[in-house]
């Protein structure tokens, strides 16, 4: 659980809720009905009922169903929303060992060191609160010019700028160059869209970064900067705001 999660505050404000689909999905997961738990979790997520915990539990039910790439995708999305949750990282490590391609995810190398500790949502709300407080201080300053607002404005202004910049970077990364997980068993990565030569082959669960999308093709990159084209529908994007792709049907029997 996040140490400084906003959920309790947001619950108080009525902005978070334990909806029925999530409760039903959790009940199915506890009862061991993983197919039903997956179906309900996906329905909840696609209805906008998302959080780090919901994606985490979706990953657990998918893992139990042996849908490893989908489980990795769910836990990657969970990590975006709850980056301080050690269970997510532990399970991701567990699931990655069951994939075929050794693709080491690069560490987030940024001077904005707090990005790895706060979710984009937490950073965004922090930026909004800081900007709001800064505006209120400005209004107070105009109403009462003698009020000592200089130091508080500085103390709020610096984190406001920092969180604004990092939120913009997070949203840009999620929207323009998102990470993705290969969801099909095997996919040849080609040098030119659907044509060209096969540069290398990726397997289910491999984690890549989507650089561009042109029509039905996506230009992907590996951490070692090798790039190539794959069909876009073979990927699941690590953006928790997007609908979750339908997991593969489990063979009868």
């Amino acid at each position, binding site marked *: 659980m996040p140490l400084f999660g906003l959920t309790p505050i947001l619950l108080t404000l009525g902005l*978070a809720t334990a*909806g029925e689909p999530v409760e039903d999905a959790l009940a199915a997961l*506890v009862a061991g009905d993983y197919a039903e738990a997956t179906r309900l979790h996906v329905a909840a997520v696609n209805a906008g*009922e998302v959080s780090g915990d919901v994606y985490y539990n979706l990953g*657990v039910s998918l893992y139990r169903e042996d849908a490893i790439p989908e489980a990795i995708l769910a836990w990657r999305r969970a990590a975006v*929303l709850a980056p301080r949750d050690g269970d997510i990282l532990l399970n991701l490590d567990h699931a990655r060992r069951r994939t075929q391609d050794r693709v080491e995810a690069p560490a987030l190398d940024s001077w904005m060191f707090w990005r790895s500790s706060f979710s984009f949502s937490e*950073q965004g*709300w922090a930026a909004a609160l800081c900007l709001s407080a800064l*505006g209120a201080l*400005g209004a107070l300053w105009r109403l009462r010019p003698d009020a000592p607002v200089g130091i508080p404005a500085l103390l709020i202004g610096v984190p406001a700028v920092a969180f604004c910049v990092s939120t913009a970077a997070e949203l840009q990364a999620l929207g323009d160059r998102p990470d993705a997980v290969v969801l099909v068993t095997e996919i040849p990565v080609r040098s030119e869209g659907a044509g060209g030569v096969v540069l290398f082959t990726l397997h289910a669960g491999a984690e890549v970064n989507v650089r561009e999308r042109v029509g039905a093709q996506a230009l992907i990159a590996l951490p070692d900067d090798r790039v190539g084209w794959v069909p876009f529908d073979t990927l699941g994007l690590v953006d928790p705001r997007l609908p979750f792709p339908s997991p593969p049907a489990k063979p009868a029997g």
Partner: protein
Amino acid sequence: MVSASLLFAASSALYAAQLVLDADTERLQVGQTIGLRLTVIDAALPGAPSWPSVAGAKIAYQGVQQSAVRISGKTSRTATYTYALTALKEGTINIPAMELSVGSEALRTEPLTLKVSPRDTGPSGAKAEASLRASGEPVQSAYVGQVLVYTMTFRTPEQVLDRRFTPPTFDGLVAEQTRDGELREHRTAIDGEDWSVVQVDLPLVAAAPGERTITPGVMAVQVPELGRTGRGPARAFANVRNEVYSSESLQLTVRPLPAEGRQDDFSGLVGEFALNARLLDDTVATGDSVTLEITLSGDGTLAGFSLPPVAADVGFRAYDDTPTVEARVRDGRFTSAAAFRRAIVPERPGTLTLPPVELQVFNPRTGRYELLQTEPLTLNVTAGEGEATLSTFSQGANDQRRDVEAQADDIAPLHPRAQADRALFSPKDPLVLGLVGVPWLGFFGLLARELAQRVKPKVDPRRLLSQRLQRAEKAELGELIDLFREALGLALGKPAPALDQDALSALPTTHRDEAQRLYADLEAARYGGGADSGLRERTLRLCRALLELG
């Protein structure tokens, strides 16, 4: 590397003078040259010892290095003599024990055996090789609890500027607790050509039975870019090239320990061990203590091991000190040694025979359980002051508990308090816009109001004068003079206070005479006695006429 082995040797030497012989590696190829070091601890030699002829090898002296190591408050001085050993033929190089006399003391090294393999006939380029070893030998099967050493050797004819090792996934193996892995790097000569060698040794313990696959280890190295070394100062900016090498994956069969022959008090130790015990004194007074030193050494892990407790009512009490465990890993060979110090307090005078310490261990080499046993030791106990007050007591039954064994590995459990978070941040969220926008709207609103208050309205003077004329039907003399001067000023384009009678000559002829007359009359009225209704009408009329001049 040298200091680590030196520390190991010095700490186990109990501060006595000692000779230690050490080599870069114990496996080499024909034509390969490695470093051979003879370290003298706490003793001085008159010069570099010369080696006798060693079959299959050529040994040449290279130099000496002296240093001091401080261990447990005592300083040990060391002198390390370095030799270059070149393998001449395939097989085994047996370096015999060297014996040197230092003063009245005779020092002796342990013999050293090096294995020489034929020259690698494959490509002459860089290569990474991995193996799992037990007691220095490659193995493909092991028993649960056995210590294996994952060894990866990387050789390249180029100079290695930087290297990074990524270990494989050790399925069914866990890291040995008392010794970290070791990464060593050295240069060696093969047929006169310099090679860089990076060797990694990771001690591991087989944890669970089954067929295990060890994924390839990866060695990322940075080497100089050939052909672009530049000249002079440009050499400092020579390019480098990153290369990645991986070893092959390894298969391992981990077998469970057999049930046959296992006693209830099986120690849990797996490996080849030796057990020794000695008393530091053979005579002690009743109630006083004497130290029993027990050493256990072998090629298995000793992490967490403790001696079996002494049974009650055996004529003495025993108090165990915290044992010291030291381990080392080199060339796929793991060795560890534990020293236990047990204080023995006899309870009655006479001859006390200490019962032997017994340990059942499993020897993976023979695949059988073995019983290690120390020799019985005899202690002469004299009468002492504590005799009358001593009494035997029992610590109760032996602790029968065992550690909880892990049966499987799994992902972390589900989160039972999952809640949907409806407050995912979006910059276009009305709540965000309101939260940020309202305070800033207030700020800018207040700012705008202040600015508006500071700006003076710009008024047309003609319009202002016209308005004043409309309200001047009952104007007094002062107001009439003021209106007259303002109207003149507007007509002449000059400020009203600067006007005098001469300035009126610039008026058009149609108004000039009337203006001069009115000026005089107003001046007269000002100093004579006020304005009459005729003067007011004339003034207002002329003012309106002047205003119409534009």
